[in-house]
Each structure stands twice: as structure tokens, then as C-alpha cells.
């Protein structure tokens, strides 16, 4: 332990602790802009500077490890010199920032804006000079890149490269001309960007944002000719509350259903229904592949970021992808066929909206063969993120916190516990095992429910199960850099597996690129993945039906409409195909 003083208070810290962490442990939140714990520790932005004895200049608290040599030193975190330095840094950042805060998607939770307010930056003319003007990159379906608001913190670069193993963005040029962008000034859409949106989640400003599709939803809601239906993914309910002051990890399932009805949707469905369908089809496909010496390991296909990654970076593994559409698309296909038919509605008059923790879903609905109800009738018309739903609720001035708990419409609104855990890494695996093991062991109602080995936020999890005398080896991966690590082993034959779950985003959909943004000050010290997942596992425990095949809605849809899992009709509506992508990598 090292004895130091922080702002006059004696502290004992473990050797190697950074000044920033030591201060935090003593209730001082040193501000940061570029620092992301474990991901982007480059000490570049100079916002976290503090005074330290024996140091001639201010030191960057985020990357300064306290060593034995610092015994007895004193650190001061809010002297005039420190505060002035931070303010000057902000003024310099603003001198190349377009400062269009009013219309900015991040106004109110922009980390730059918050610091400017705190430090009283009020003179935006202090450093007037040359300013680079950048074109808006609106080339991709899911997001905007506006470098006029970029502060070159490189958090997005770290997310794209180190965390996701994609690396289509980076810092180009040098000095004043430094610009975060793609190779050769390409647009994002020309690259193998997988649309995961993790870069948006870590951006401190409004430089990166999802494409806002709420205008399309408002238009549909205002069109009396249209029947507007909505489905919400499992993990949306685990994050939406954060936009309305609820602690991270609070499930707002009931309030969300009420809010959607108040917004004017004609029917409120749950993507959990689609998730249960996915399990029925995917468990069936897995058993078929295992029993007929099919291509193994089978890999899940519900994460569109992962599917895109596979098509671009591991095209040779495409035959391993489950042919199942994602829950969003399955639910969409059933809404425009089974539900439309049952209610005598022309599917062309339905506007089907999905609320997703994901921005890749915006891309997914434009994929080929995602029109179960017929050519020109997309399974889902419009996908909005959790953030966009929060904006709609705010715009409608709905007092979200005060809402009573509402319910989803049935059928297509009641999901099993297995469906709800889809939102957390390991959830799809566990849900599939609940049904596959039940099937393989003679369909006994008391077949196991909990497969706890595949739970938790660890990037790569391996487990072996003995099912009816047969060994089934599984792996669960989240975060695409982890996927690379595992898939390279699978390709080399170092790992023999039957079934792999891959989610593009670390921690799974609970930490999806469309979730409510947790500023770095929060995400550096709270594991938002684990907190949000807890909400889902607790909902699972309290569901009556915890296995997909036990869901009454699922039984009904198969009995009345689809027949058996894997039937001809199921294949027509619920399955899809994949193709290699040759965009720049």
C-alpha cells in the first residue's frame, strides 16, 4: 500500500492504482473524455489533469499509476491551475466543434456539453481560427457520422477495433488535419462495418448517432388508413427506464407496454414471441444437424451484427449459421400473415414497427428474403432503437415513471422465460438447451430449466452437457473480437463444438448499440451488462412458462398455422439465407 494525500485527505492506495481510481474511491469524480476503462487508456484529452507534488506539469490522472515512489505525495484535483487547464482544453476542443447543440441528438447527455457547463465555458470566441469542415457521412442505413462534432477521443476507434475486431474506423492524417474516418476517405457503407453501433454507445458527443426513424413512426401513427403494430425486444425493457431516471437494471416491462399504447399503436406485441419461435425452429434445426451428421457446429443467427461480421470476415462459416431468421423478423412475418389473416387485415396496410436494443436491426430488415407475407411486403417496416422510443415517449410528454403496468396483446404478446433471457449473452443458448434437452430426453415436463454455466458477462464461455447419453459441447461468445478468437480455434480444429451462440455486442443485446447511452463516468465504474442482465433473469424466474415450447401463444401458432417446427410453411416464413460480402475490410 502507498500512503498519499488527495486534497488534504490521507488515503492508502494499492500500488498501481491510477490517480483517477484512487480519487474515485475517495468520492472525487475526476472528469474524463477519452478514458474508457480497459479499452481506451491513452491519456490524450487532458481533461483529467491534476496537480501532484514532484511533478512539474499537471499529470493525466487516468493513466498515472501510483507507485512506491509516490509515498507521501499530495494530489490536488480542483486547484485554480487544474480548473483553468481543463477549461482551456475545453475551449480548444470547442474551437473545432460546430456547437450546434440545440438540434443535436446528444444534447442533454453529451459529455462535452456537461463539462462545459460544469467548468463555466462561456466564451466560445476565445480561440477563433481555422476550422475543418467535414461532410456528414449518412451512407449507411443505421447511423450518421458527423466529424464536425468529433473531439478525436478515439473511443469509437477502440470499440470498433479492440472490442469488436472490425477496425473500419481509425485516426487518419496528423496534427490539425487528424480525422477519425475510414481508409481512403471511404464512406462507412463502402466498408465492412457490421452496424453493431458500439461506436455510438461510446461516443461522448453527437458525432456518432443512430439514424432517427421516429418520423416514419409518427407518420404511420397519424395515418388513419394504417394499422400500426409494434414489437419490443427482450432487453429494451431492461434499459428504457434509464432514460426516465430509473436505476440501471430496472425492468420497466409493464410501463413500456402502457406507454406504447398511449403513443397510439394499434397492437402491442412482444418480440419474446418471436424469440420463442426462434427457439422452436433453432432447437429443431440443431437436433436435425446432430442426428443427421449435418454441418456442425451450428451458430446462432439472431444478432444481425454478428451475421454481417460472418458474411464479411468468415464467409467460409456461412453454412454453419442457423437458417433461422431473427426473432424480430420471425415475429414480423407472423404478424403480417397469421395475425393479419386472423383479424381480416390486408398486410399491405400494416406498418410493423420494432423497438430494438440494436441499430443493426435497421439494416437487418432490408436484407434479402425477409418478406414472409409476399414480395414487397417486408416482415418489419421500421426498426427504432431503445433511445428512439425514449425520445418518442418524451416528445409525447408521457409521465413514464407514473404509468401503471400494462400488458401486451395476445397472441404474439406473451413470451416464455426462455425468450426473455435472449437479451443477455448465453440466453439464446440456455433457451435453446431448455427445449432441445426436453426434446432429446423424451419430452419430460421436468426436464432441466437452468443452464447456469452459460450465464455471465465473460466474453467466451464453454460448457459440455450430457444429454440422453450424448455429449453436447457448446460455446457462448459476445463481442466480435472474442468471436474471432473462438472461430479461429474452431477453424483450426482446436475446438470441436456442436453449438455456438454469438452476439455482436459484449454482454449481448442488453449492451446493444441502440440502448440508452451510459456516459463513460457511469460505464467505467458499473458493469451495465451485468446489471441489465439481472433484470432479465429475474423476469425469467417469475414467468409461468420458462421453456419456449410451453408458451401458450407458441402452441397456438403451431397448432393453428405453422404445423410442426421445420415445416414447409415454417421454412417459407421463418428461415433465411446468407451471402458473402466483399466490401473493404
Amino acid at each position, binding site marked *: 500500500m502507498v500512503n498519499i494525500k488527495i486534497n488534504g485527505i490521507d488515503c492508502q492506495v494499492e500500488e498501481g492504482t491510477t490517480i483517477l481510481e484512487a480519487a474515485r474511491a475517495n468520492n472525487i469524480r475526476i472528469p474524463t473524455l477519452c478514458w474508457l476503462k480497459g479499452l481506451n487508456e491513452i491519456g490524450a484529452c487532458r481533461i483529467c489533469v491534476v496537480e501532484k507534488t514532484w511533478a512539474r506539469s499537471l499529470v493525466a490522472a487516468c493513466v498515472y499509476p501510483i507507485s512506491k515512489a509516490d509515498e507521501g505525495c499530495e494530489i490536488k484535483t480542483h486547484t485554480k491551475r487544474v480548473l483553468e487547464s481543463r477549461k482551456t482544453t475545453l475551449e480548444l476542443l470547442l474551437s473545432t466543434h460546430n456547437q450546434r447543440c440545440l438540434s443535436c441528438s446528444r444534447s442533454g447527455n453529451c459529455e462535452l456539453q456537461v463539462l462545459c457547463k460544469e467548468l463555466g465555458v462561456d466564451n466560445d470566441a476565445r480561440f477563433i481560427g481555422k476550422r475543418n469542415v467535414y461532410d456528414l457521412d449518412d451512407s449507411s442505413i443505421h447511423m450518421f457520422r458527423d466529424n464536425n462534432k468529433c473531439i478525436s477521443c478515439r473511443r469509437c476507434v477502440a470499440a470498433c477495433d479492440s472490442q469488436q475486431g472490425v*477496425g473500419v474506423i481509425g485516426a487518419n492524417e496528423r496534427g490539425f488535419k487528424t480525422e477519425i474516418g475510414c*481508409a481512403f476517405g471511404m464512406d462507412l457503407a463502402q466498408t465492412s462495418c457490421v452496424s453493431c453501433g458500439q461506436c455510438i454507445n461510446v461516443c461522448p458527443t453527437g458525432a456518432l448517432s443512430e439514424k432517427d426513424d421516429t418520423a416514419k413512426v409518427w407518420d404511420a401513427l397519424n395515418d388513419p388508413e394504417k394499422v400500426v403494430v409494434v414489437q419490443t425486444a427482450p432487453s429494451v425493457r431492461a434499459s428504457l427506464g434509464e432514460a426516465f431516471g430509473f436505476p440501471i437494471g430496472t425492468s420497466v416491462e409493464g410501463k413500456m407496454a402502457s406507454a406504447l399504447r398511449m403513443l397510439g399503436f394499434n397492437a402491442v406485441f412482444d418480440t419474446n414471441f418471436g424469440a420463442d419461435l426462434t427457439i422452436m425452429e433453432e432447437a429443431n434445426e440443431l437436433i436435425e444437424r446432430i442426428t443427421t451428421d449435418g454441418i456442425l457446429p451450428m451458430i446462432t443467427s439472431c444478432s444481425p451484427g454478428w451475421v454481417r461480421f460472418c458474411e464479411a470476415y468468415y464467409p467460409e462459416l456461412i453454412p454453419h449459421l442457423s437458417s433461422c431468421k431473427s426473432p424480430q423478423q420471425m415475429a414480423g412475418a407472423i404478424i403480417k400473415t397469421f395475425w393479419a389473416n386472423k383479424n381480416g387485415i390486408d398486410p399491405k396496410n400494416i406498418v410493423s414497427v420494432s423497438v430494438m436494443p440494436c441499430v443493426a436491426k435497421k439494416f437487418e430488415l432490408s436484407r434479402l428474403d425477409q418478406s414472409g407475407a409476399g414480395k414487397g411486403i417486408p416482415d418489419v417496416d421500421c426498426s427504432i432503437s431503445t433511445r428512439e422510443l425514449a425520445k418518442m415517449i418524451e416528445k409525447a410528454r408521457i409521465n413514464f415513471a407514473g404509468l401503471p403496468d400494462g400488458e401486451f396483446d395476445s397472441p404474439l404478446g406473451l413470451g416464455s422465460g426462455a425468450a426473455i433471457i435472449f437479451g443477455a449473452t448465453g440466453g439464446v443458448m440456455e433457451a435453446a438447451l431448455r427445449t432441445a434437452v426436453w426434446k432429446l430426453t423424451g419430452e419430460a415436463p421436468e426436464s432441466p430449466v437452468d443452464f447456469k454455466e452459460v450465464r455471465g458477462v465473460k466474453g467466451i464461455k464453454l460448457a459440455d452437457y450430457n444429454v440422453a447419453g450424448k455429449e453436447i459441447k457448446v460455446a457462448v461468445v459476445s463481442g466480435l473480437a472474442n468471436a474471432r478468437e473462438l472461430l479461429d480455434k474452431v477453424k483450426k480444429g482446436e475446438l470441436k463444438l456442436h453449438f455456438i451462440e454469438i452476439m455482436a455486442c459484449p454482454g449481448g443485446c442488453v449492451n446493444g448499440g441502440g440502448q440508452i447511452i451510459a456516459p463513460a463516468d457511469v460505464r467505467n465504474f458499473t458493469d451495465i451488462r451485468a446489471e441489465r442482465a439481472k433484470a432479465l433473469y429475474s423476469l425469467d424466474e417469475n414467468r409461468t412458462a420458462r421453456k419456449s415450447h410451453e408458451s401458450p401463444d407458441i402452441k397456438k401458432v403451431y397448432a393453428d398455422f405453422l404445423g410442426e417446427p421445420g415445416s414447409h410453411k415454417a421454412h417459407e416464413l421463418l428461415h433465411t439465407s446468407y451471402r458473402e460480402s466483399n466490401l473493404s475490410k
Partner: protein
Amino acid sequence: MATKISPAPFAGTAAQEGQLIRLIHEIKDEKGSLMRILQEAQGIYGYLPIEVQTLIARELNIPLEKVYGVVTFYSQFSLTPKGKYQISVCMGTACYVRGAGEILKKLRDKLNLQGDEVSPDGLFSINDCRCIGACGLAPVIMINEDVYGRLSPTGEELDDILAKYKE
């Protein structure tokens, strides 16, 4: 967005590619090998177009953006082909105050080269550079390895100098 891909058609040969791939395989496991590979590649091709950078990224199994980021960070690397005679105009402080700016402009006008492109006959390309260490001779230009100093800001010597490089 404005693309930085060189419009000049890529004229790399199989022999050049073989040479580069051999080099990459030889040194790719050394720390910091990317810099040397880029330097050698520029030596082989004269510049680093997207075709060459893509090949390097593929062979090193790293994203193209990572290669491009390094290439654009260092001024020694070029994305566009250079002329047979590369004219560098020193814009260091001493040269600049003695009229290097005017000389650069005159050269650009005379050769009708406004950016880093090559003249249609393939002979000339122009770039500005920082101090080449000959401040006593300011203002200075270099044509390949030849140094011309104490030029007048009016550029009256330029025609005679350029005449030496007509083929």
C-alpha cells in the same frame, strides 16, 4: 465523402507483388514491421495506392484502415504516383520568409500542377516540405537529389532549371 483513392490506374506487376509478399513474410512477425514494409513497398511501387495497402493489410491480417492511418500520419508516404522528377519546395521558416511561397506558386503555374498529381508527360510532381537543412541557401528547392538554392522570389531561374529535366 471525398475519396482519397488515386485516380491513376494501378500498373503494378506480378513481379512487384511477389517481391512485396516475400518481404512481408520475411519480417511480419518482427515488432513494428509495418513501417518497414510500407517503406519497402513505396520503394517497389513508388507510391502506396489502395491496391498495395489492401495487399499489405491482407498479408498482415490487420484492417486496411490501420495501414492507411499509418500511411497518412507520415509525410514520407504518398498515396499518389510521383513524377520522374519530384520537385520539393522547402517551406521551412528561413525559406518561407525569403519567398518560398511565391516560388511554389510560380512552379505550380508553370507546370500546371495544383495538387500532388503528376504532369501528363509523367515527368514532374510537386510537393512542399519542411526544412531540408539548407537554411543558409534559402529559399531552396530540390529536384530528386539535386539542390537549388538562393533562388529569387520572382522565380527567374526556374525556366533554366526545369529545362534540364525535359526527358
